[in-house]
């Protein structure tokens, strides 16, 4: 286990190879294989580390590895005295990290495999670039997971943010993709602002950023039951970061837009792993959060509100990917609800099951979109069950899991959360249960619109190549039948005559929506198996299970009193627990049946409902107008401030410099004038006087030598006369 630090480095090497050499020289097969191999090795190492960890006694399942000094010790004062600010590259393996390692590398590997087929339409360089980013993401995510202190965690944290930025903006020629990437990064940055301040406060309070030392220090401090003290301040700041990364209110707006990225990236980053990093971080600091009950309440409330809000929005969206995105936001809300009520293991368990079923749903959705040649509007799908049986059945498993149907994994984890919420706060439980109903409803709305009923797409469009699409447009013209135009009864028939079978007859290379290659269906099936199996690790005791996950994870949260005491003191009787399970199952089933009833049997209902509550509908469809609100206030405000300050800079600050310049010029002109007219004037006056005077005298100077000679002689005579006679 001393070599756990190699786990992130293997994908890093893959990313470096693909980035430096691959984009220019590697073929598709080599680039894809390299990336998959890197993650596979990381997966193998993770399993090895996991096995090694399990072999240890439960109390000893923490292993820290210090690689090197990152920031060497520098004196810095803290709340107590002058300490040393020092950060090491530390990797820490404990049950929490081990679970996350498996999730990240396991799901990551499957998604890599899926991507090798999904991204085949990309040009060669883009293909390698994509896998470079994916591997880089795995690297940073594993750094995040293995981090032994807050600052190393922050490295992974920002690194996955960078990869998210790059992958969302992967098709950078699309402005919407570039915008979405930027938005994701900036919204995350706002959260990170809080995270950074939290880190600073952690050091100031504890004199260290190391998780182990933090936990020790916190355990010695009293819980802040009433006041909002320093621990609460730390927690709220850290939670701001978590809310940004995990798309919680009010920073959730970036995640739906992030669906601009390629599907495997969305599945890996924006569903399975990165967005749950916030939950992981809160769970990692369980002891800290446990000492700040007020913040825990805030976390729970934010979580449950996010869950509810995202579910309501998901109910009316038509873009299949956006529905899943809101579903992700909603499910992460559940996780925060769990952490908020102190059920850290439930949160992590749900994180894990969610990683499986949401990755499955996303990949299935990718399979659908791939088959539909990029069409993402569910209104234009329908009846795909026939053409894509594997996708349908695996997605159905995923949908049942997210809806919470036993005995799939989602049931166990969600039920655990509801159970703990019930103990903690009945109102939260009520909202969470309502959200569960909505979850089942929107999920089966998606399933129904996509897979059941009749095919509503343009007849020829579900094709891959652009040429075929153009061809398909011709078909559409030849068969101008719209599914909506035909009655319900006609639909089946219509499909048979004008559906993809039509195309088959006309010898098209890829007739209609169909399953992709084994590289696409394989991961789907593997994930479906995972969705079924994973839940049993967390089978609650009420059902006769052992709740292995909880036992395994508990040491990671040891020291957080709520986890232990909450479990011991407030446990409900077995009957009550079973009753709750029954209740949530019934709610889910009700949601599913409602969805089937509304969207399959009475497709007019939603439209009528939307017409009746038009305001409500548009409000939901426009995502509570939060994007508009932010863009009107924060974005516009910033831009306006920027423009205003620039004008200020030019006019006032530089204007002052300019004024100084003009003043100097004016002064110099004035002195020039003084110099020219006054000082120089005096000099000139002297010259002028001399000149005028000389005019008088120069008459004497005739220029005739004889005159001069005459004067000389006369002078001589005069002189001699005086000299000789006048003496």
């Amino acid at each position, binding site marked *: 286990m001393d070599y756990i630090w190699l786990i992130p480095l293997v994908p890093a090497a893959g990313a470096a190879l693909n980035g430096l050499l691959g984009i220019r020289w590697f073929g598709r097969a080599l680039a894809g294989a390299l990336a998959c191999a890197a993650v596979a090795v990381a997966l193998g190492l993770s399993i090895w580390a996991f096995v090694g960890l399990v072999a240890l006694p439960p109390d000893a399942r923490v292993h820290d590895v210090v690689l090197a000094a990152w920031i060497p010790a520098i004196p810095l004062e803290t709340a107590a005295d002058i300490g040393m600010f020092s950060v090491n590259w530390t990797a820490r393996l404990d049950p929490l990290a081990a679970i996350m390692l498996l999730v990240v590398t396991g799901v990551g590997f499957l998604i890599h495999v899926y991507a090798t087929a999904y991204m085949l339409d990309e040009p060669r360089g883009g293909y390698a670039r994509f896998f470079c980013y994916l591997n880089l993401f795995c690297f940073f995510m594993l750094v995040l997971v293995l981090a032994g202190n807050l600052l190393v965690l922050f490295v992974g944290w920002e690194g996955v943010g960078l990869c998210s930025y790059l992958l969302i903006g992967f098709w950078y020629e699309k402005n919407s993709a570039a915008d979405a990437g930027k938005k994701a990064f900036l919204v995350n940055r706002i959260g990170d602002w809080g995270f950074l301040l939290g880190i600073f406060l952690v050091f100031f309070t504890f004199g260290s950023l190391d998780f182990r030392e933090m936990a020790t220090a916190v355990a010695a401090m009293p819980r802040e039951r009433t006041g909002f003290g320093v621990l609460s301040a730390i927690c709220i700041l850290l939670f701001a970061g978590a809310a940004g990364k995990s798309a919680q209110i009010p920073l959730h707006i970036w995640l739906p837009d992030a669906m601009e990225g390629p599907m495997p990236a969305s599945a890996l980053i924006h569903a399975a792993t990165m967005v749950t990093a916030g939950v992981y971080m809160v769970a990692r600091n369980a002891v800290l959060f446990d000492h700040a009950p007020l913040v825990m309440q805030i976390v729970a409330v934010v979580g449950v509100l996010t869950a509810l809000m995202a579910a309501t929005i998901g109910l009316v969206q038509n873009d299949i990917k956006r529905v899943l995105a809101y579903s992700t936001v909603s499910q992460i809300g559940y996780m925060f609800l769990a952490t908020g009520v102190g059920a850290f293991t439930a949160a992590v368990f749900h994180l894990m099951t969610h990683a499986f079923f949401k990755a499955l749903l996303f990949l299935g959705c990718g399979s659908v979109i791939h088959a539909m040649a990029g069409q993402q509007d569910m209104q234009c799908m329908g009846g795909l069950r026939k053409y894509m049986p594997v996708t349908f059945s695996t997605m159905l498993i995923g949908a049942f899991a997210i809806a919470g149907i036993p005995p799939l994994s989602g049931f166990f984890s969600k039920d655990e959360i509801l159970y703990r919420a019930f103990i903690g706060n009945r109102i939260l439980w009520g909202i969470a249960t309502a959200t569960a109903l909505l979850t089942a409803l929107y999920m089966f709305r998606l399933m129904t619109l996509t897979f059941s009923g009749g095919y509503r797409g343009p007849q020829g469009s579900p094709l891959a190549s652009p040429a075929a699409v153009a061809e398909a447009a011709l078909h559409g013209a030849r068969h101008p039948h719209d599914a909506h135009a035909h009655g319900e009864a006609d639909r089946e028939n219509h499909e048979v005559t004008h559906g993809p079978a039509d195309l088959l007859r006309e010898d098209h290379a890829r007739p209609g929506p169909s399953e992709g290659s084994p590289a696409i269906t394989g991961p789907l099936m593997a994930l479906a198996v995972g969705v079924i199996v994973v839940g049993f690790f967390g089978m609650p005791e009420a059902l006769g299970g052992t709740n292995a996950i909880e036992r395994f994870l508990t040491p990671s949260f040891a020291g957080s009193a709520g986890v232990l005491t909450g479990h011991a003191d407030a446990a409900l009787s077995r009957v009550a627990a079973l009753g709750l399970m029954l209740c949530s199952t019934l709610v889910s089933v009700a949601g599913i049946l409602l969805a089937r009833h509304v969207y399959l049997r009475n497709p007019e209902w939603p439209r009528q409902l939307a017409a009746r509550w038009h305001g409500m509908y548009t409000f939901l469809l426009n995502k509570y107008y939060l994007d508009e609100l932010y863009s009107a206030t924060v974005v516009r405000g910033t831009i306006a401030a920027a423009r205003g300050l620039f004008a200020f800079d030019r006019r006032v600050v530089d204007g002052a410099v300019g004024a100084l310049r003009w003043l100097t010029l004016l002064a110099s002109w004035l002195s020039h004038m003084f110099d020219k007219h006054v000082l120089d004037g005096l000099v000139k006056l002297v010259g002028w006087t001399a000149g005028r005077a000389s005019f008088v005298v120069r008459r004497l*100077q005739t*220029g005739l030598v004889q005159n001069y*000679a005459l004067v000389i002689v006369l002078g001589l005579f005069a002189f001699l006369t005086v000299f000789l006679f006048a003496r």
Partner: protein
Amino acid sequence: MMPITPYHYLVLAAALFAIGLVGVMVRRNIIIVLMSIELMLNAVNINLAAFSYQLHDAAGQVFAIFIVAVAAAEAAVGLGIILAFFRNKETVNIDDMNIMRW
């Protein structure tokens, strides 16, 4: 026969000098002015030679020879200037020679 005394020399020289002086001052032809200057110089030479003989001192005669040499040089330069002037102005009238005036 009456012996020639320095007195005679002085009268001769004074007369010669006066003739030269008047010539310089009243004549307008520059060549005549130049010749008049020569007369004045030679008047001086006569004085120098007379007193040299009288006083038995050769220095006076040396001076006289110097003056003859300088007068020759002066006449050459002066005639050169006059010639150059004449080529430009086609006149030797001294009244026309005022171009160097302020």
